[in-house]
């Protein structure tokens, strides 16, 4: 886990990591959130709706942004203030995701960093994008 302080951050700084959301994780998120929509739970239903598999819950995909700020950029001292996300294409269980973010603004007065983040498929296709606002304790 990174432990970057606000004064160690700079515009353009970025972090990237790979992640896989498994079918089990989709089941666990469904149980946790109560979102049991067949689009997430029933492969036949999802395929009939035009998908190649069950669709990962958008907020489960977006939870990787929590990992991005809480573990990678800036890491330990982060507190997520705001997230504005767009879900451009479906995420499917088992695919390798490229999660990344870059610092686009730094507010000195309140030690808040703005991060432009995305989740891409292994083919580079944009699946989720987000603007994250992250406060730092130090």
């Amino acid at each position, binding site marked *: 886990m990174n432990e970057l302080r606000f004064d160690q951050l700079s515009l353009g700084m970025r972090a990237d990591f790979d992640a896989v959301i498994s079918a089990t994780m989709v089941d666990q998120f469904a149980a946790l959130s109560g979102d049991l929509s067949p689009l997430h739970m029933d492969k036949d239903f999802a395929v009939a709706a035009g998908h190649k598999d069950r669709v990962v819950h958008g907020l489960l995909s977006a939870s990787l942004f929590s990992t991005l700020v809480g573990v990678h950029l800036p890491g330990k001292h982060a507190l997520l203030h705001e997230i504005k996300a767009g879900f451009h294409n479906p995420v499917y269980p088992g695919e390798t995701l490229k999660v990344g973010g870059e610092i686009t*603004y730094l*507010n*000195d007065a309140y030690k*808040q960093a703005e991060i432009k983040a995305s989740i891409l498929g292994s083919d580079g296709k944009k699946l989720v994008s987000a603007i994250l606002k992250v406060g730092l304790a130090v």
Partner: protein
Amino acid sequence: MGVRDRLQGIFRDVFDDDSIVLFDAMTANDIADWDSLTHISLVVASEKEFKTRFILKEVKALKNVGEFIAMIRQKTGLDE
């Protein structure tokens, strides 16, 4: 558009409320949703809108919106 109108636009955007009309004596007590997080959003949006930077000491010293407008004018040289 003057500083007051531009700042008013920021307030309306941050609080998602087009009925907000700024007045000099306005404080956080006048807007129900004005909390620590929206306060940071106001400061950051103002920095971007007026292409300036604020330091914590000067922001904390502000007593009301009128003083915020005066500070923006002083820092940017805008006189409207």
